[in-house]
């Protein structure tokens, strides 16, 4: 993975695989604390306690294939950038995974195309409620697909025109967030 936004796309696939109907991605950038954190919370079926211990093992997976590299790769990249990952899960309730990074660490991966990640997820999973929050120091941007669907009335959220709007909406609001 070359970008954090790709890790996010990857971890969200786990939530979808766990049958989540609500997924929240929260990115917090705080230059004063030199912190970059990514938190993904879902209401999927959760992970049993004994499997939680194995999650960081690249050769552990509950799928048919033989490897489970998503979480180990994220862990490796977080640790390379002075951070770590934390996973909390409760069966029947959902899972929260938080990855932290030192914001100015040389090895911290760039955010990358987060708008492409978000629109990609919405395109393929229009039924899932998806919330994206991004803060930079004390400013915050938030997007909630439920709110967008309410505005859209009967226009499908995964129509190309709407997805293009969402992509621009994210780009422009993030730029605003980063502007002093």
């Amino acid at each position, binding site marked *: *993975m070359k970008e954090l936004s*790709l890790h996010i*796309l*990857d971890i969200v*696939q786990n939530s979808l*695989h766990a049958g989540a109907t609500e997924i929240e991605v929260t990115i917090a950038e705080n230059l004063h604390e030199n912190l970059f954190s990514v938190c993904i919370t879902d209401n999927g079926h959760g992970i049993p306690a004994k499997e939680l211990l194995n999650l960081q093992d690249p050769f552990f997976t509950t*799928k*048919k*294939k*033989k490897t489970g*590299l*998503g979480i180990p*790769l994220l862990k490796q990249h977080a640790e390379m950038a002075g951070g770590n990952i934390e996973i909390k899960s409760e069966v029947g309730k959902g899972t929260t995974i938080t990855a932290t990074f030192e914001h100015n660490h040389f090895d911290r991966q760039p955010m990358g*195309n987060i708008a*492409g*990640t978000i*629109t*990609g997820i919405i*395109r*393929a999973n229009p039924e899932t409620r998806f919330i994206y929050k991004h803060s930079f120091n004390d400013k915050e941007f938030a997007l909630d697909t439920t*709110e*967008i669907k309410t*505005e*859209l*009335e009967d*226009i*499908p959220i995964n*129509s*190309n*025109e*709407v*997805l293009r*709007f969402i992509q*621009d*909406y994210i780009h*422009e*609001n993030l*730029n*605003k967030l980063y*502007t002093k």
Partner: protein
Amino acid sequence: MSKVKTLDDLRKLRDELKSKTTLRDRSENPEGIVQVKVAMATCCIASGSRETMNYLADELEKRNIEAVVTQTGCMGYCYAEPTVEVKMPGKEPIVFGYVNEKKADEIIEKYIRGGELVEGIIPMNYQSIDEDKK
């Protein structure tokens, strides 16, 4: 500062789209249109499947081909990511490997538009790694 889109702009877009008669929910008749599934697991994402999916969706629309583009899990052909399954109406699905933007363009023009097979097809009898050994 440049203009930033707001939900007001979304409402304007909604009204614009409502006045267009061509827009309809594509999920109502998925069998009658081209169905494209892009594999989106760790191996695929690391190889560029997000860009492939967004490219295919944009280009199919630009070229006026009615299609639904969605994602699927790992198909087991991790060596050939990004992999894409294309199902033309009334035909068996075909899986293509190594689908970058250039390959995606070729698939749209030659296979989807022209019905001509292109290089890079993963044969049906190829055993994927997630198949159980018998």
